[in-house]
């Protein structure tokens, strides 16, 4: 095996290999099994263009190094040359599987900066769509994660059901993926006729489907063996690394921004924060499954109590927030999605900084996979639920 080790040590990777200590001279006791391999950027299990450099001893992982930036588009820089409203669609291109959540965070941040509040009906619509989006995001995660671990079939089931959500999005705002659903100050579109009926129908449709996914996986012996005690991270470690979202909650920390700092209309709904115990891959799976059910609960309450009224607050035609800065964060499907916006009083933001949950959570990869096997790296990358569009921005 060692005959094949030397071809990755070009200048790029040796710069990147800081924590793999490639530079240390050969030990007196030669280890013939040590090898460095590149996983990605073109690899079926890295969910896009993530490159993970693995230092292996046989199949055991000694260390990892994530090389990111293959999908970098300079979204934050673009913001400095766009007006606040013009920048809104760009946000959707970050976490493209949870575009609605992204838009919500940005709109609310700018609203806070402008000191306006969206009308209640708009908030309810926002909650419904965001939670639908959370389910869609978790479904996509479940399908790809199961596929990584080798179960092909759940992928098709989740995509079938995700399609129903995308249909609702399409009917509401004309786009399936990059929705641009919300505007600063509320929503641009009133719900279409039959929106509530369709959402209710979706609720009754998808609940048994979630049971179906669980029937395939939750008690499956192979699934248990592949996920239990794999990629463990303790609560303290998770907090120290800034991990948020389901990954943090699976470690037993009951931290959900929807409860901790309620935004939109979340304070009006009754739901629970599912948490795990061990912080392993299986717990993260269970937490996300439970979250899908909780999202259904929230949507049900929201649809039943949706108030009448305007959907747009009074917002000036030209958005010129006062000089100042704001940090606003929401609970996106993947974790805490924060926007830090600095305004210089002009029509364009002076600086926008996004705190993407995937990017921060990806930091925990190395901690999670050390000492595990290559196959576990795949499972752990899947379980962190990264979207490279968001990591690289």
């Amino acid at each position, binding site marked *: 095996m060692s005959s*094949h080790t030397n071809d990755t040590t070009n200048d790029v990777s040796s710069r990147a290999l800081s924590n793999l200590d490639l530079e240390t001279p050969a030990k007196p006791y030669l280890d013939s099994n040590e090898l460095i*391999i590149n996983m990605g950027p073109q*690899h079926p299990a890295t969910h896009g263009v993530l490159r993970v450099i693995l230092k292996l001893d046989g199949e055991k992982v000694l260390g990892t190094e994530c090389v990111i930036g293959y999908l970098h588009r300079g979204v934050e820089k673009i913001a400095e040359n766009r007006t606040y409203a013009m920048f809104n669609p760009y946000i959707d291109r970050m976490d493209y599987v949870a575009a609605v959540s992204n838009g919500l965070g940005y709109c609310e941040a700018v609203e806070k900066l402008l000191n306006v509040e969206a009308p209640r009906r708009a908030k309810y619509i926002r909650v419904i769509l965001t939670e639908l989006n959370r389910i869609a995001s978790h479904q996509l995660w479940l399908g790809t994660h199961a596929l990584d671990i*080798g*179960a092909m079939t759940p992928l098709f*089931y989740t995509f079938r059901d995700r399609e129903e959500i995308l249909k609702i999005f399409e009917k509401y705002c004309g786009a399936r993926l990059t929705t641009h659903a919300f505007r600063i100050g509320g929503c641009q579109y009133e719900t279409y006729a039959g929106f509530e009926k369709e959402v209710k129908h979706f609720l009754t449709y998808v609940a048994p489907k979630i049971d179906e996914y669980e029937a395939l*996986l939750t008690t499956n012996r*192979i699934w248990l063996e*592949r996920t239990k005690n794999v990629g463990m991270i303790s609560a303290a470690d998770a907090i120290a690394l800034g991990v948020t979202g389901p990954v943090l909650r699976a470690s037993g920390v009951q931290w959900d921004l929807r409860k901790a700092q309620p935004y939109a209309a979340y304070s009006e709904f009754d739901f629970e924060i599912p948490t795990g115990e061990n912080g392993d891959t299986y717990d993260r799976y269970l937490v996300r499954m439970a979250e899908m059910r909780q999202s259904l609960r929230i949507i049900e309450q929201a649809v039943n109590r949706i108030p009448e009224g305007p959907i747009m607050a009074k917002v000036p035609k030209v958005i010129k927030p006062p000089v100042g800065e704001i940090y606003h964060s929401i609970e996106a499907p993947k974790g805490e999605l924060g926007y830090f916006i600095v305004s210089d009083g002009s029509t364009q933001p002076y600086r926008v900084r996004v705190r993407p949950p995937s990017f921060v959570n990806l930091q925990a990869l190395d901690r999670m996979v050390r000492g595990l096997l*290559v196959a576990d790296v795949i499972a752990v990358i899947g379980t962190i639920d990264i979207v490279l569009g968001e990591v690289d921005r």
Partner: protein
Amino acid sequence: MPSFIMSYLGSTVTPGEAGNQFWALMYVLIIFAGVSVAVMAMNWLERKALAHFQIRLGPMRVGPHGLLQPIADAIKLMLKEDIIPANADQFVFWVAPLIGLLAAFTVYTVIPFGPSQAVSDMNIGILFMLGVSSLGVLGIVVAGWASNSHYPLIGALRSGAQMVSYEVAMGLAVVSAILMTSLKTGTGTLSMIGIVQSQQQQSVWFIFKFFPLGFIAFGIFAIAMIAETNRAPFDMAEAESELTAGYHTEYSGLRWSLFMLAEYATMIAVSSIAVTLWLGGWMRPFPNLLHAPMWDFIFSLFPGLTFLCLATIAFIGTARMPAHSFFRIQRIGLAVFAALLGFLALLLLVIAVAGRSADASLAARFNEGIGYVYWFVLKVAVFMYLFIWYRATWPRYRFDQLMRIGWKVMLPISLGVLVVTAIVGVLVS
């Protein structure tokens, strides 16, 4: 020369034993063609069945319900550019798929489709099968090495270790079945035909012999054979999410298709071993219990009825095709296919009726032979379906878990079963 051809037809032994070279060659050709067709059918079936498990349609465009898809795929693969990586070991890269293919096809010389429907009845039949199929792993290991690339090498080493480990449990399970062959006569046999015949003599399939024992041994074999063929959930060697495609990552075109051909041929071969050892090989259900001529006749109708069933399904499919003119050619094609199946069904039924009366006539012999082959193929087909079902249902094991199961679970159990079988066998006789 015609007498040379005809003289064998009345014989009840394999052409290999009869020393009839003409028929031995014919059998080899028939089996080669049959296996190739079976692999194509399996390819289509796997894609269709997997698709329906996963709420998709699978191939629908090439031919009615994608029936011609395997042929289209084969042509595509043959016309594809054959890429050999620059730093690969050219000769070894070239020869590796052939090793696997040769090993996969050589085992068919001893598979008994009937008491005389085999190329040869080797005295060491089952050992020969296991030995030759263990050569297939050489092709995989060498292919991974010759590619001169990380992922193929890891895949090759994985599958090499995996196949060697599971061969142990598999061999012990086989031994406990072979032990059972010696129960009535005192001497056991390794001959594939002899194993089926001893099941007939003891009037029990070995899966039901000493009830849990035979079943456990069969179960171990059934698990080990999935690992042997690198299929899900043990498809570590070609785990696409981990190793892109494992040992054949660098292969393309015809050479890649040879790997696939070898894999499917091996699947059929190991299923045949399982059928021969535990499921009574070519025997129809209850050959000793329901052995009146009436029952013989009823069971001899099965092949014809099966084809009739298939023909009916094809006809229903024809009728349900959309009326659009776009589908006209497909409709005609499916109708012709259905008619062909119906014709075959008719032919088989006619043979069944004709072969009913006279005992030594050619028709009777023919009828008998068709029955043997039919039941054998049917049992193997069940295994083939199971392979697909497993693949659709289960996630993939991790490599160390796979090894742990192989060495720490399967090996002790199969050893225990072997010992207990021996003790029970001694006590009974």
